[in-house]
Structure formats: structure tokens, C-alpha cells
């Protein structure tokens, strides 16, 4: 059982370290404004925002309902910053 736990732990360590830094930043930013939202919900919302930067989507609406200090423009802005980091469009960021 201990071995299984180790394997599972190892899996998540690899998964987290391999996740793109920018998406991690997005998750951290959103968690600050939505302390009750699960990481999975934030990532599901990020997937939705990647196709349309609108908050009228299933998981994004659920995420915003769980947020005390995060509104739609803030969420979209955080996501845009995430995209920006991926293309190096500002030198040094």
C-alpha cells in the first residue's frame, strides 16, 4: 500500500512539475480569488477559455460562482497573461 501511495505521489509530482509554468501561474492567481474552487475546476475553465474568452461557459460559470474575489474580467485577464507567457511576446516575460 505504501508503494502504491509512493507511485501515486510520484505521478502527481511529475504531472505538476511538467505542467506549464504559465498555467500554474493562472491556477495560483485564480485560487487567490477563489479559495474554495478546486484545481480541476480551474483547469477545466482554462480549457474552455482557450477556445472562447467568454465567461458564459459551463465550468467557467461554476468557477465564478465559487469565487469571492474574482470576476469575469479578472479571470479572462489572468488567462490572457497565461497565453502571453507562452509566446514570449514581451521580452523578459
Amino acid at each position, binding site marked *: 500500500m505504501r508503494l502504491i501511495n509512493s507511485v501515486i505521489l510520484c*505521478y502527481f509530482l*511529475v504531472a505538476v512539475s511538467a505542467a506549464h509554468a504559465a498555467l500554474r501561474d493562472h491556477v495560483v492567481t485564480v485560487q487567490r480569488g477563489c479559495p474554495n474552487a478546486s484545481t480541476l475546476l480551474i483547469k477545466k475553465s482554462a480549457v474552455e477559455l482557450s477556445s*472562447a474568452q467568454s465567461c458564459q461557459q459551463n465550468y467557467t460559470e461554476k468557477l465564478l460562482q465559487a469565487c469571492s474575489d474574482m470576476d469575469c*474580467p479578472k479571470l479572462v485577464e489572468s488567462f490572457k497573461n497565461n497565453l502571453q507567457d*507562452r*509566446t*514570449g*511576446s514581451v521580452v*523578459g516575460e
Partner: protein
Amino acid sequence: MKRYLLLLAIFVASAGAAESPQSLEERIAKLEEKLEEFEIDKSYDRLHVSGTYINYLETINATSKNGTTGEKVAENGEIMSMHVALNFDVNINKNIDFFTTLAMGKVWNNDGREGEEQGSYRSYQGSYAYAGSTARFDVAYIRWRTDEECWSFALGRMTTRGGPPMNQLDALSRNGTYPRFGYNAIFDGLAVVRDFKAILPKDYSVKTRLFYTPTFQLDSRDRSAPAQDVDGNAIDRRSNQLTWLNEFERSNTSFAKKISLYSMLWYYDKFYDAEYQSSTREGVEYYRALSHSLYLGFERIAGSGTNFSWSNLRVNSKSDGGTLNHSDAHLFNLNYTFASEHVVGVEQIFTDRSFYIDDWSYLQFNDFYQRPSSSGQHVFGAISFPHRQVLRLGVYQYRAKVNTFAGYDSKQTTQNFYASYRIDF
């Protein structure tokens, strides 16, 4: 009987106990195998592909009147063009990233344009020269970043063009480094960036970016020989350019969601321009300039979608044997971004008699951002569609006076309408 039943129970239990560790090991082995596959997949998944595709239509509608003869000339027509940019970004490790953009800009069904003749200007233009269907690298640079992300170093062909506030026209995040109304060109060179976030309170941001982007001149055939001017004089191989961009940002104020103040100072010397050589002066004539661009931006004013920015450009330039020229210009941008990401806005420009901007990489077919002695407006509206599609409609219009100093012997009125379809993926 009870004894037999007890023995049977012990046998079944021991058999189960013997089988249990074996299946557990098998499951662990399977999990390890899956984990290895996952690790291998991840190790190859370092390449991120994205891109932008734009189709652009502009109507040309300009009237000029010669300041001496009074002769009127009207110019009308339409131009359609496209621009494709494919980004291939490689995350080498957590500290090193390599960014590239392979791009093509062309006028529809025309592969005959070459863009600027001078090599340095062709480099600054990149794919924005509309030089046909051959792709060019507009970006190719490597970035090293420290663990704390306080220091960054960049080397190569960098994302210096198309800076703020141009991103706001399509409701995008900032996608260029130098302010648009400062320097709009693609530069090769070195950069060092210091982010002071570690020592600043939350909601404050201070960054300083230093660029060294020298321009080199070489003979077009013999790489070991210097380039020559029309009189056969050797041109200096290197023209130095240093740019210092300081950025201050304050977020979440009661007045605006974000306040940005950027100050960019740059200097270049020994710059050779083939078109501006004195016919009477002996030897090569070089240019030097000390310029400053200020960008002050307010985003989401009073919690609404209102954005406002003011850009100011001051250029002090001098050629060998020439007089010192001062130029001053202003660009104001006021726009409203709706929750649906639709945008309406207006830009107002004022330029003086000796106005000059190094503006090389742009899509439009008019000189709205470049014309000296002018005042004009750019009115625009952008509609956002799902999957990051934006349709922008607008008009560039300006009035420019006769300006013999800058080589314009006619006053001009321009009113160019345009439509731009853009998708980011």
C-alpha cells in the same frame, strides 16, 4: 466436520493471502509502466505551437493639393492582404525558453514586392514588408530566466514591435515590448530585464529592460568587405543602438484596474541611410539620435471597460554636417471594451513639422502614424467571436499640411476605411 471446515477456511485464506501480493505487484508494475509512458510523452511535449492569421482590406482615398501650383491629385482604390504568423515555442527547461515566429505577409496574388531596398530596413520590417509568400522569421530568440524570475536575459531576434496600446484595438493582452508610438520595428540583439516584484508590495510592478541592438552594414556579395555608398566610400560596419525601457505598473486602484507608465529612452549613432546622403558633402553622412517615448495608460477606469492612453514621442536627431532636429508628437487612445470583448474606440494623433518615427512593421497601407505636420483620427470597432476571432472595422483619416522640410510639397487629406479579420489559435 467442523475441523474440515476450519482447515478449508484456512486453506482458502492462505491461498488468497498468497495471491494478493502477487496481484499488487502486477498492478504496481502496470502503474510504473504507465508512469514511464507519461514521463516519456511529457519529455517530448516541450513544443508549443500557436499562431495568428489576419486578412486585411483597406480602401485608399486620398486627395492632395500642391502648395505651389495648386494642382489637385486624387487617389482611390482598394488593397487586400494577408498576414500569417506561426509561433513555435520550445520550453527547454524551467529556466530556458526558445521562441520563434515564422511569418508571411503578402498582398493578394502579388509576389512582386521586395519591401525596402536597404538591408537594415528589410530586417526591421520582417514579414510586414509584404514581400510575398516566402516566410521569414520575425522572432527567433532564446530567453534565460532565473528561478525567482527576477532576472531575464534574451538573445536573438526579439518581439520588439507592435507594443501597447495596439493590443487594445482587438481586446488582446500586450503583445509587443516597445511602445507602438516609440519604436515599431523588429530588432536583433541582446536584452537584460530586471523585475523588482520580489521587493515590491502586491499590486505594484517595476521592470527595467535594457537592449543592445546594433545594426551591421556589409557588402551585399563579399562578406569580408564593408558596404559602400554610391561614391565608393566605405561605410562603417556597425551602428550602435541602446534602448532603456522602464516600466511602472500599479494594479487595483480605485481609479483604474491598472495604471501603466512606461518610459523608453534610446540612442543610436553612425547610422547610414542610403536615401539621405548629401550630394555636396564629402564622405559618408551618418545619423545619430537620442529619443524618448512616454506611455501612460489607464485600463478599466472606475471599474468600467474604459481604457485610455497617451503616448508621446520626442526625437532629437542630427546628421553629419546637418543641424539638430527636434520632433514632438502625441497619440491618444480612448476605447471601451465590453464584457463580451467587443471594442469601440478612437485614436487621435498630432505630429509636428519635423516629426519622425521609426515605424517599419505594420499592416496598414497608409501613413497615419508617420505623417509629419498632421492631425488625424482613427475610429474603430472590433467584434469578438468565439475561438478568438476578431473582426475589426475602422477608418484612418488625417489632414496634413505642406511640409517642404520633410519633403511633402502638397497638403493632403486621407480617409481610408479598413476591415480586418483575425484569428489567434
